[in-house]
């Protein structure tokens, strides 16, 4: 009986790892959408950049992985700040979305040129390159480590947003930018920081998550779509708990759904999003009445 449940438990664990990876990417997107009110269509490209960076810099050691993470964070901070400068003169959402789409196109072209359009597989650090056995079912040590790393990351982000002064400023800029500015906060600076932080989260997720969702053509739009689903379900802004719950739900549906009802798995996420929209619409109608 217990042995029957083990394969499901291993699949569910895969769902947790996948969900936590999506949480890190989607949290960055939620920050950008919430603070900047900009749909960053290049967010998937940021993940892809991180994943390729892992392929080029990680050499199968923990040091190599750490170097890739640090390089990714530095590059993402510069890229995020640069994007903030690019978006500043543009007032409309459409123009801003067009610019981010343009960056996505250029990134896609650059990655194809550099990799020949092949799907790459980054080396995992030797110390984490193995499988743990659960009643005869193997589970990658790397994915387990990712779960162990991502949980404190989520908790840390929750604490920063909810308890720190930086988080209070961020939430003020999300909730009411005009009032925040009237209180002497530099909303422009907060926006730049939000964009840089959001990009850093996506790139970091790419570096660490490359063995889970490997880099290749089309991965950018796939990751963007999945993180959008998380943001729509969890809400844009700084509600870390809702985002985490949504990301875990998406991760579970992607893993357990594929294992149980593969024909429905590809539609189920979109159907969940539509159902949530319908329910939210009814709630708004009731509250308005």
């Amino acid at each position, binding site marked *: 009986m217990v042995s029957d449940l083990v394969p499901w438990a291993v699949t569910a664990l895969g769902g947790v790892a996948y969900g936590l990876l999506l949480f890190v990417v989607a949290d960055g997107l939620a920050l950008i959408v919430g603070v900047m009110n900009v749909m960053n269509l290049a967010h998937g490209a940021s993940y892809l950049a991180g994943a390729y960076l892992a392929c080029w810099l990680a050499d199968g050691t923990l040091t190599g992985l750490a170097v890739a993470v640090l390089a990714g964070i530095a590059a993402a901070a510069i890229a995020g700040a640069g994007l903030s400068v690019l978006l500043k003169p543009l007032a409309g959402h459409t*123009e801003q979305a067009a610019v981010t*789409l343009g960056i996505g196109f250029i990134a896609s072209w650059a990655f194809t040129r550099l990799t020949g359009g092949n799907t790459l597989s980054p080396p995992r650090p030797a110390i984490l390159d193995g499988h743990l056995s659960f009643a005869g079912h193997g589970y990658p040590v790397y994915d387990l480590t990712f779960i162990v790393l991502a949980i404190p990351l989520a908790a840390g982000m929750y604490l920063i947003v909810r308890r720190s002064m930086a988080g209070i400023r961020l939430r003020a800029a999300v909730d009411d930018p005009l009032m925040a500015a009237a209180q002497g906060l530099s909303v422009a600076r907060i926006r730049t920081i939000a964009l840089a932080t959001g990009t850093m989260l996506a790139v970091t997720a790419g570096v660490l998550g490359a063995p889970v969702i490997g880099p290749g053509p089309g991965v950018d739009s796939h990751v963007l779509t999945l993180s959008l689903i998380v943001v729509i379900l969890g809400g844009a802004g700084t509600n870390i708990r809702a985002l985490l719950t949504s990301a875990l739900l998406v991760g579970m549906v992607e893993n357990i759904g594929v294992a149980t009802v593969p024909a429905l798995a590809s539609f189920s996420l979109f159907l969940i999003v539509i159902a949530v929209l319908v329910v939210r619409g009814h709630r708004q109608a009731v509250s308005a009445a």
Partner: protein
Amino acid sequence: MSTVTAITPDAINAARPPLLQRASANRWRRPRQGVAVAAAGLAVVLPAITGRYVVTLAATAIILALLAMSTQLLAVAALPSFGQTAFLAVGAYTAAHLADAGLTDGLLQLSGATLAAALAGAAVAPVVLRTRGTTFLMVTIMIQGLAAAVALHWTSVTGGDEGVDTPPVTLWPGHPLTEAAYQYWYALAVLAACGAGIGWLMRSRLVLVLRGHAGHEPRMAALGHHPTIGLGLGYTAAAAIAGAGGALLIVVNQHAGPADLGFGTAAAGFAAAALGTCLTGTPTMTGALTAAIAIIALRDATGSNGTGPLYLGLLCLTVPYLRPTVLRLHRHWARRSEPTA
């Protein structure tokens, strides 16, 4: 019930009354008409002066133009949509199934595709129109994703990854459109007909209502306009336009498959509409048409050696800054030319 949102710059652009622009527009009317007549003449004689490759690209540009116009109609209501490809797909697969059933008549396929896409749009509208602004954009990306997943996995209807091959379209029995030039002229005629219809629509009360909702939705609601009905009609009309594009996809490619209806096509359609808005300052159909042609020219013609995405990206990174820069320079020159006291 729909959500009530703050007025955004997009909404201001979409709802900007044409009176303010009329004086400057009048000055440019005649040269613009001249350019339009020359462009139309060039479009008609294109197969006579160029080869098959360019003609096929021009037909592809017409399909993208319809997709962009569909997106632009929603932009008029300050609804930035990424998901019009879903209705292009509905139109394409409807036309493909009609062709499979032996109904190869082009106009019949066009009518069927347009109607099916309009019905799909009417069905989706109540759900999608619960959101506005950036959230609307995100939800329409979901719609695009759902359509792509359906196209890939509902193999009994869509043929899955392989897609559906169709026989050539006929305009009258026994005369299939197999020549690229005839396919292009047919597509051009459909674009002209759709353009006339859209032109009428843009002067209709419906578009006034869409502009009103874009400008101040609560006030429109207070005046008795139900947002879901008004915007829903606009959404349905936009879906129908994309559906017509889907029918043309079958004419040109004789094939409907996920590769033609995926994220790349959606991104190109969205970029064409967005760049069209950037070019003219407001969401106009002329802007969308011009941008669609520019995108195909840059991405497929000039960038056929793999540099297409680079050129398209540079276009997206350049055009949004053109208008603000020109306006800034114009203001600067106007200030300098003012007589000093």
